[in-house]
């Protein structure tokens, strides 16, 4: 073993506290050290050249650089060593700047410490092994889970880059929550006008395979090659032959008798339906919970939908379909659920029919909603409307400490729309704090106030009914006094909750979640679309409450990371990972439960543990726990650490 040792002065940063000559002279006499030199700036080109030429001239096989923190220049020196033909993992650094010369004043003791740190690095270097990164092949396709605006945007971006995308949506149509909105704040764009072209693009895109009415059941594998199993529920309508003409729905014996979940039960539909007229795919679906043929096995003499469909698309024999495919990357865009207003019983959502949630009111504004866009609520035009903000947000009593970020602005938008349609109607907004943070939001808020909407600061306490009218009791926190407002309509600014599908997805993909139960990004500032699982990315509200522009921006970000990954034929997996010595492994499976990435898989046949090289992140927790000492952690092996330890004591 020939170790080359290089001591950096770092100008005077190291040499003013550490006696470099002393370190060099001591190290020259240490076992395995073939060359020991010092230089002003090891990281400079001449410094690196010195290492490279010494490797060639002296046949050095391990290199120690004593300089700054390896967090600073380890990549630099690894590259230099690699350039000289040595394996990059045959390098060890001794941190004698950040952790020695900069924090100590006593020159003698700092020098003594530097000597022991460099000796320790030599001891480790002597035991280092060349490591090769594993090449993991990449499947050039992606899975996008969730067909809301975020999923749609990600799918289109990835597909436009030339890669195959499987877009899986649980509902019969893509579009998500945005498809239910009438206008979007603050520009008052019609939501359908900007969303439906994108939905159609998805349907027509040659690179997108759209799987609606389907759920992801299983995901195995890891970055580069995930194996996905999707279960598609039967629509009882043949997707190929259905033209979406709607004859079946008009003919259905239950026409106009089934509550539409798309309209939150405010409108009625048939048992065979499309959720909304612009649905994509525009194919009818039979609701298995209400269709007479499915629930009772009989529908008159013969099902009227079958008679009405001249293309013969209806097929009661249809069964679930299972789709299996491989992808290289996954985008989780599972969106959110609306906060359940009945969890705040004091607002009477369950008791009074004129207490609505924000999303319900949204349907009333919509031209394809229950009243065709007219603000007639339960038969009456409201003369006074009260909005209550922060229902289910910033409320620790219901377990949601976070701000939902969209409610202030959707309330402002809805208040504006009411004023626009019914200028004489009184509109009061009871707000906690006004959060108009986005582009053009503050200006919109100001505009709404000028239109005559009353904003009163303070939480609403209670909604009750007296003489057939609703009363909202609240405290004005600016005046410090309680007050009451009579209202024909109370709208609860319900917040956003993590998606109900989060549990399943989290366990399938081993994703972490933050304390609010939204999916956790890899880093809150610098890696907001990545997860700790390589190859899995987040888009939209699955990661936390977001408005449409933020969801779209994150979706584009996630798509670009996917494309970045898919553009390679293979990825290099970091070789600093745990390795099982199969001869020593007794198959106790202790390590299996410790791994947060589920990289361990037990080989039942041979009775030994195996570690997936693509999944292991190299923490070494399993190596520390292995009772038989049969897991070794590359580059941080027990013997390497102990060798370091013995030199510093």
């Amino acid at each position, binding site marked *: 073993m020939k170790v080359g040792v290089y001591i950096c002065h770092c100008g005077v940063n190291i040499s003013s506290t550490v006696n470099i000559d002393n370190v060099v002279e001591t190290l020259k006499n240490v076992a395995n050290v073939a060359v020991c030199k010092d230089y002003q700036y090891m990281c400079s080109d001449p410094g690196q050249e010195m290492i490279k030429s010494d490797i060639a001239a002296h046949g050095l096989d391990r290199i120690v650089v004593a300089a700054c923190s*390896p*967090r600073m220049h380890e990549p630099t020196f690894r590259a230099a060593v690699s350039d000289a033909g040595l394996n990059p993992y045959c390098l060890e650094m001794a941190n004698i*700047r950040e952790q020695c010369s900069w924090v*100590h004043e006593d020159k003698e003791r700092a020098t003594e410490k530097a000597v022991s*740190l460099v000796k320790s690095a030599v001891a480790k270097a002597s035991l280092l092994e060349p490591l090769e990164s594993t090449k993991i092949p990449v499947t050039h396709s992606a899975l996008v889970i969730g067909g809301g605006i975020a999923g749609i945007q990600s799918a289109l971006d990835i597909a436009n880059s030339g890669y195959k995308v499987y877009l899986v949506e649980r509902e019969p149509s893509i579009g998500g929550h945005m498809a239910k909105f009438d206008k979007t704040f603050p520009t008052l764009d019609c939501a359908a006008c900007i969303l439906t072209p994108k939905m159609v693009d998805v349907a027509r895109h040659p690179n997108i395979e759209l799987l609606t009415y389907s759920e992801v059941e299983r995901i195995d594998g890891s970055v580069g090659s995930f194996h996905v199993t999707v279960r598609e529920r039967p629509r009882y309508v043949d997707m190929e032959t259905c033209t979406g003409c709607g004859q079946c729905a008009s003919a259905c014996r239950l026409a106009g008798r089934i509550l539409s979940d798309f309209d939150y039960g405010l409108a009625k539909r048939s048992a065979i339906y499309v959720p909304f007229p612009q649905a994509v795919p525009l194919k009818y679906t039979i609701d298995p919970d209400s269709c007479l043929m499915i629930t009772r096995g009989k529908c008159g003499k013969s099902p009227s939908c079958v008679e009405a469909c001249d293309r013969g698309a209806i097929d009661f024999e249809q069964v679930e379909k299972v789709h299996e495919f491989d992808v290289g990357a996954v985008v989780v865009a599972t969106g959110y659920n609306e906060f359940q207003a009945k969890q705040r019983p004091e607002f009477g959502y369950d008791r009074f029919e004129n207490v609505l949630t924000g999303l319900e009111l949204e349907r009333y504004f919509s031209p394809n909603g229950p009243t065709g866009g007219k603000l007639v609520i339960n038969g009456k035009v409201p003369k006074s409307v009260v909005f209550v903000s922060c229902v289910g947000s910033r409320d620790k009593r219901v377990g949601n400490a976070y701000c939902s970020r969209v409610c202030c602005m959707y309330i402002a938008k809805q208040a504006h729309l009411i004023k626009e349609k019914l200028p004489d109607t009184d509109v009061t907004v009871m707000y906690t704090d006004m959060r108009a943070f986005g582009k053009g939001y503050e200006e919109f808020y100001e505009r709404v106030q000028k239109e005559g909407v009353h904003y009163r600061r303070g939480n609403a306490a209670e909604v009750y009914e007296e003489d057939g009218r609703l009363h909202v009791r609240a405290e004005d926190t600016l005046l410090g006094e309680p007050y009451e407002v009579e209202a024909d309509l109370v709208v609860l600014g319900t917040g956003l909750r993590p998606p109900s599908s989060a549990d399943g997805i989290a366990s399938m993909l081993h994703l972490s979640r933050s304390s609010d139960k939204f999916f956790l990004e890899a880093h809150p500032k610098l890696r907001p679309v990545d997860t700790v699982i390589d190859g899995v990315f987040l888009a939209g509200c699955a990661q936390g409450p977001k408005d449409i522009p933020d969801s779209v921006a994150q979706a584009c970000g996630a798509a670009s990371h996917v494309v970045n990954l898919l553009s390679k034929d293979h990825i290099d997996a970091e070789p600093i990972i745990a390795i099982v010595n199969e001869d020593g492994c007794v198959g106790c499976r202790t390590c299996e439960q410790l791994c*947060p990435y589920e990289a361990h898989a037990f080989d039942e046949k041979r009775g030994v543990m195996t570690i997936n090289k693509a999944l292991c992140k190299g923490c070494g927790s399993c190596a520390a*726990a292995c009772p038989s000492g049969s897991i070794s952690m590359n580059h941080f092996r027990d013997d390497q650490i102990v060798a370091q330890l013995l030199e510093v004591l």
Partner: protein
Amino acid sequence: MGKQQWTPKIVGFLCNWCCYAGADMAGTSRMKYPPNIRIIRVMCSSRINAEMILKAFQTGADAVFIGGCHPGNCHYVDGNYRTKKRIDVLKRLLSHMGIDERRLRLEWVSAAEGEKFSQTMQSLADEIEQMGPNPLHLTGGKTYER
């Protein structure tokens, strides 16, 4: 190295992502602390097993310091929780062996907490200085050598 005056020898095992970066931060901010500590970098504090710590005490350490990420901030999801459990068990074992459990210290230091790192090093050095040398060495120390 001369043995004229005893000063504590402390070994620190620091996780790469938080505590080691915190120690670097102490350096960048030039926050002084006594040069007793020798730092060994590992990727995660949960890489450290009992044998390494016992080996340190057996071969001359007066104290062992383990530094990891704050709870909830572990780079490897939950490695630091495992470290905590293991260190708690080991502390009891050390007491049983006649080694004051304060000689094994676990702290959470973030990459931003240079000041906390330097203060921790100062207080640990002070504490061990008062306690005196590791009793294993008074009895010759290396009696447990394999």
